[in-house]
């Protein structure tokens, strides 16, 4: 009888949880829905004009850019993770976290620095001309960074740490006996990696690749800098040029569906693999690498760190040295404080929501349980400005309702409660970067053996108790990584904060953007360094504390 009551209460709980989760999901999904809705009213004429003129080329650029960046990121991140895991690389202790640092480098910044460096007028080509006495571009060949290929390499240089980090975690959770087993079957360790390890870390590769893909396709500033026209170019053209927000939304919807399609396809094709070993790999003993091989691997890892982080940082430092003064520094500290404030709140909120969504997926018995996690991740694939526009369209009506309700109760109208506030900025960050937190925590949770949870249940633990005593302690590294990633991304985010912020509110990214857009990065170099440094603090702190 008592148990029946418990059962009944449970179902009320279930309903309440369901409603709460649905509400949260809906809130995060709102901008996407608004985007779809507005896109549905797109006039066909403009679309067909675009289709007949530039869209096919944009589309092909988009697909190639996505493909290239994903492949390069997998190559950079996957190989460096494998090398570090299996080979005694020189400086491995430093490389472990140095390889994460390019994440702190905003893509638009590195794009600027590298085009500046490699352009015809850049340092490298000037030096070559001076050295070999070439006079004009016709005298020699030099690669053009402002191409699809150049953009792909540069974007991959700052996105590969996703692949590196997630793959490395997956590798460390694999049982080194697997490779021994394969070795005992007469398969060389390298081929063993191909046949055993890669299939097992494929889920990790897939998760990170989809993060990279979404981030690439949502990018505008960088590709514009490289003069590569993609679907996002079309989105901006239709919106700002043709003043046709509906078509812009329709195009953004197409972009989103494209990403969604790729991600779902990948998930479908992937078999369920559960790596459930807690062993720390002793894998390095398995390999007797050739000296040349070791040299190559070491150089590969260090080059990535140099190209993705150290060199751009050095360039910034030189600029800052030449152009900055102490007055600027104090201004930047205030602005930096703003950045940390909004990014910190956004990271915390995203983390808490991701915990709710992943655990709902894990614990709920309803068939609906997968959806909150997936749906709340969609915002990642929307270009920041489109997302900001959708949020304006979302918050506007809500603010109107709030005022109408206040008026109905004879209260003073509160004005805009959501639009143009820090809340709006934080909300945009959360929607935009939810996917990162979701993905990281979900991967972590899948690596916790089911039996542990069953054991906890059989010992009388309810859901919340299991969450607190088993899941959260075991997930600590994943939680920290998730928080860190969202924080760093939010520090770098530009278009949403630009459009949604309140009066007189600058972040480091908006500050630098103003200067970059006026070709005066030199003036903003110090700010750029601050973005990078603020992004570094958590990475270094985490590394000391937790061996990320």
């Amino acid at each position, binding site marked *: 009888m008592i148990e029946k009551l418990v059962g009944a209460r449970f179902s009320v709980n279930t309903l309440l949880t369901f409603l709460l989760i649905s509400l949260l999901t809906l809130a995060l999904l709102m901008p996407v829905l608004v985007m779809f809705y507005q896109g549905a009213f797109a006039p066909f004429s403009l679309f067909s*004009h*675009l289709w007949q*003129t*530039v869209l096919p*080329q944009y589309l092909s650029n988009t697909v190639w850019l996505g493909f290239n960046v994903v492949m390069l990121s997998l190559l950079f991140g996957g190989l460096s993770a494998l090398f570090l895991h299996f080979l005694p690389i020189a400086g491995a202790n430093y490389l472990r976290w140095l390889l994460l640092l390019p994440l702190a480098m905003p893509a638009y910044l590195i794009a600027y620095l590298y085009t500046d460096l490699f352009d*015809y*007028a850049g340092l490298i080509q000037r030096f070559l001309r001076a050295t070999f006495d070439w*006079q*004009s*571009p016709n005298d020699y060949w030099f690669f053009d960074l*402002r191409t699809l290929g150049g953009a792909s390499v540069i974007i991959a240089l700052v996105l590969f740490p996703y692949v590196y980090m997630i793959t490395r975690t997956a590798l460390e959770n694999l049982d080194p006996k697997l490779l021994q087993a394969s070795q005992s079957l007469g398969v060389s360790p390298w081929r063993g990696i191909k046949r055993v390890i890669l299939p097992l870390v494929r889920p990790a590769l897939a998760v990170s690749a989809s993060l990279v893909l979404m981030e690439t396709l949502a990018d505008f500033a960088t590709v*514009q800098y*490289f*003069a590569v*026209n993609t679907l996002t170019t079309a989105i*901006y*053209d239709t*919106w*700002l*040029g*043709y*003043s046709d*927000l509906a078509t812009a939304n329709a195009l953004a919807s197409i972009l989103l569906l494209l990403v969604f399609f790729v991600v779902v396809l990948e998930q479908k094709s992937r078999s369920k693999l559960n790596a459930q070993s807690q062993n720390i790999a002793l894998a390095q003993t398995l390999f007797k690498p050739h000296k040349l091989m070791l040299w190559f691997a070491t150089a590969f890892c260090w080059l990535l760190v140099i190209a993705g982080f150290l060199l751009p940082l050095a360039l910034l430092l030189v600029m800052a040295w030449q152009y900055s003064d102490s007055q600027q520094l104090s201004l930047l500290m205030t602005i930096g404080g703003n950045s940390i404030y909004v990014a910190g*709140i956004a990271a*915390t909120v995203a983390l*808490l929501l991701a915990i709710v969504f992943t655990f709902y997926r894990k614990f709920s018995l309803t068939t609906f349980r997968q959806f909150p996690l997936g749906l709340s991740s969609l915002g990642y694939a929307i270009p920041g*400005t489109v997302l900001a*526009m959708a949020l*304006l*369209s979302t918050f*506007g009506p809500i*603010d*109107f309702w709030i*005022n109408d309700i206040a008026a109905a109760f004879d209260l003073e*109208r509160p*004005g*805009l*409660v*959501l*639009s*143009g*506030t*820090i*809340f709006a900025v*934080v909300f945009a960050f959360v929607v935009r970067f939810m996917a990162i937190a979701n993905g990281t925590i979900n991967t972590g949770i899948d690596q916790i053996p089911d039996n542990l949870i069953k054991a906890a249940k059989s010992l009388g633990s309810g859901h919340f108790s299991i969450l607190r005593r088993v899941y959260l302690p075991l997930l600590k590294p994943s939680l920290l990584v998730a928080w860190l990633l969202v924080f760093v991304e939010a520090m770098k985010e530009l*278009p949403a904060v*630009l*459009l*949604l*912020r*309140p*009066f*007189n*509110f600058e972040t480091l990214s*908006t500050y630098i953007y*103003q200067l970059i*857009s*006026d*070709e005066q990065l*030199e003036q903003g170099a110090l700010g750029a360094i601050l973005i990078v440094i603020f992004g570094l603090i958590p990475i270094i702190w985490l590394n000391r504390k937790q061996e990320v």
Partner: protein
Amino acid sequence: MLKKLIVAAAMLLTSVSTLVSAADEVNVYSYRQPFLVEPMFNKFTEQTGIKVNVVFAKKGMAERLAREGQYSPADILLTTDISRLIELQDKKLLQAVNSQVIDGAIPAHLRDDNNQWFSLTTRVRNIYSAKRMGDVALNYEDLALPKYKGRICTRSGKHPYNVALVASMVAHHGEAKTQEWLEGVKENLARKPQGNDRGQVQAIHQNLCDLAIGNSYYFGKMINDEKQKVWADAVNINFPNQANRGAHINVSGMAMAKYAPNQTAALALMEFLVSEQAQQMYAEVNMEYPVRAGVKRSALVDSWGEFTADDLSLATIAKHRKTALMLLDKVQFDL
């Protein structure tokens, strides 16, 4: 954990309600970068005690204003291009400002017939030429001549400054002729459209091309920049079409938001921006051409000499904007 969460939420909420604007403030939504207008604002605050709050974004300010509707805190909008002003007007986001001070300062052809928008400065779309070419008298039409094959640099054709130029070509020559012209220019490009106006001058300096399209004030700014001076030194600034209709000009402008909550303060700021003092600052700091008669150009700008401006109305240019964009797509100018 929960406690921290509540504290965070509370902090969030308090930060939300910092928007309440006092009587002696004025709120500006700006398409112009703050550091270009801040000197004027500071002067204004100094003189009147009215505080100026700014949000700057290059994109989307019109949408933000539209969504905020009657509750928008925005009083004044600043733009860098005529098309943005017309867009705001078309979306019915502006209100008429009837001020003798403003009307007296701005020539009629540089403000709206219904007093909904006003130009603050004008700028010319110049053609820069390499010094090594010597003196050249150029028309925009000449950029399509076969002799300039592989010698022209420009930023994206879709940039508002270029779109306005193309729109003026449509207004003068019609759609078909303009398309031909665009195809010719595209054929002559030394490289895919990229970068900004300064980048094109830099390219001339580096021998990548001989001719570039760019706004007038950049030339002045580059001359004043330590690093960029060498670029500017490599080029001559040319005012096109001087033998016929005159050079294409664009404007930066201002307007009052339809639901401006601080109308008095807003009006004060608008009148200040057309005052001799502010106009002088525009001329000196930004190297633009002041709209107010009698205000002196900066000495540097003045040294470029007098020029004839195309007297095509701004409204006409805005009207042909869409056609211009479609033509740019059609000839795949940026691809």
